[in-house]
């Protein structure tokens, strides 16, 4: 049982390394960064306490929001999904990504206190 799980995982990693374009790998690195940042914030909240709660929330929501936006960018840029996004060019996706981030950061900075 664990054997098959291990083989699936190693196969997956191999496929990832070979067939994913570089651009997507960069976005994946970014996603990992965002994830870790969010996890560490949550850890602080669990270990030390919720004071100040609004700051924790805004930081955490910022991570979550950024993660989601980056995932959207990755989906739109992926050449394999081109058929689904005929009207959206990669540049357009990036522009949307930047605009949404501006709005997100406006809200986050307002809430962080």
């Amino acid at each position: 049982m664990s054997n098959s799980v291990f083989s699936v995982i190693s196969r997956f990693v191999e496929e990832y390394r070979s067939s994913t374009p570089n651009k997507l790998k960069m976005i994946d690195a970014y996603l990992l960064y965002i994830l870790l940042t969010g996890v560490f914030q949550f850890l602080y909240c669990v270990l030390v306490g919720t004071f100040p709660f609004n700051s924790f929330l805004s930081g955490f929501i910022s991570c979550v929001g950024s993660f989601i936006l980056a995932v959207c960018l990755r989906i739109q840029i992926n050449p394999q999904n081109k058929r689904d996004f005929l009207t959206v060019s990669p540049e357009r996706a990036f522009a949307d990504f930047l605009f949404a981030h501006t709005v997100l950061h406006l809200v986050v900075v307002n809430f962080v206190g």
Partner: protein
Amino acid sequence: MAHLCLFSLLVLSLVLETQALTPTHHLTTTDVARLQAVLSQPFTDLKSAYYSVVGLSKLGIFVADADETCRFINSNLDPSSVESLFYAAEASQALSGCEIPVTNDTRDLLLATVSEDSTASQIHQSVSALSALGLPLASQEVVSALKARISKEDNVLAIILALQTASRLSQQAELGEILEEIEDLAARLDDLGGVYLQFEEGLEATALFVSAAYSLSDHVDMEPPLKEDQVIQLVNSIFSKKSWDSLSEAFSVASAAASLSNNRFHVPVIVSAQGPAAVSHSHPFLQLQVTDVLCQPLSSASVLVESASAVASKSAILSQAPFTLRDGVFELNFMASQPASGYYQFSVAITGDSRFVANHVELKVKVSTRVAINNMDLSVVDKDQSIGPKTTRVEYPTKAKASFMADSHQNFAMTFQLVDETTGVELTPHQTFVRLHNQKTGQEVVFVAEPDSKNLYKFELDTAERKTEFDSISGTYALYLMVGDATLENPILWNVADVVLKFLDEEAPGTIQAKTLYVPKPEIQHLFREPEKKPPTVVSNAFTALVLSPFLLLLILWFKLGANISNFTLSPSTILFHIGHAAMLGLMYVYWTHLNMFQTLKYLAIIGSLTFLAGNRMLAQKAVKRLDGK
């Protein structure tokens, strides 16, 4: 179905209408005397002489010095003024044996004033002067002139004066149209709360209207179109004011009172109890004064109690019992029917004259009695009932000779009966209190004695249960019985006995503290909200570093993946875009530290639009390059 509803509504309204009004305001004998005093003031000119003389004559009083007054009138008379002639003529008619010299010029002047061109007031004055002086006048001319004036001057006072004038004319004249004005005027009265009915012009206008309407109605012998309730409401309005601002106001009230007490159609009846409406064995007669509005007793009246019933039990005591007239007061021996003490609702009817208005009166009569205390038994009962109770009987108003002892194992009990002194019927007064007073400390505790189903009053004191009321202070307490009620003539405060109460000593407070209600209370210190406890700086710093560490990881990963900026074109739009983007991020930091949302949005709009334009251009260039590269 609709017909049935309508019919029942009609019946209901008829039933409600039979609840007639009775006057809430009327003149008492002191008020009438005050009115006479106001009218008897020495007069300064012809007008005030008129008001005084004629006003007093309406009240049935004649001026003391008639000759002196006559001379005064004659000397102040101005024969060229219609008004002056009016005052003089009317005043002289009220005095006996006073003559005003009349010349042909005077008569011509007065007759000439009777025309459509004079005001209603002038016509009234000339017609009254002509009739007072005994000069002939043409009634029909007057009528037509009045009709013309009424249609021109549509105000209330003018129409009232027209009514007064019409009552001086010959009965053969066509007064029908003027008579109808009474009804029109009555419709213009304001109903205030269903109690008062008056003109907005004031009391004087209302009073003059009443006197004019009744004098005209008497003159033509036709009942005025005023309903009984309206008459009573007019009585309330006119007689609610007991001191009058001016002589003319007093005069108008006097005329109204005179016409209401002596006209052919409506005579309002004022019924008032002499003293409080209460009877008892010492005062068994219920005395009523039945008068007209001028406080003159009605000689032809006969007063009857239609029904009298107890308020509490609604059982009828009397029915159709007549009052007897004695010395101008109607009285009834109510105690002869042996009523129990309490309140009774009387419905009284005054008959004898078909003109009486408001002749059904509702009265509340109180029957008082004296109370006696029977069978006052005091005892000390052991709680476990092992020793039988010793009962001591005490007679009112003596005090028990021995004092009673009760400690925590015993109960002190008291039973008694309250009866009517004369009839022996059991009573349940409103207040039956037992008061225990500690003479040494001044403490006082009051309990209520309750009657049981057989009207026997019981009071039990359980020393153990009631120790909180006594603050566990042992000692001698004087026991008082307090009995009181509105229908009792002899409220009772009786020191029945002395009771020595023993409480368990360890519970007694050291000193007795008077209840301090009015000393300053301890000051309240406001507690501001404590700031929340922050974690130590070391921990915060450590976690900040931890949270920022993934950024390093990101840079390493990107480097390993081969991220580069080799495609960076140095075109203006690219530079502008990057500067704009950096500026936006800087703005976010400044927003966090200094600005508020509005300022930020303002700057963001400026920087954002620049960045957007530059970025658009840059990305377009990139897209072109990408498509070319394909």
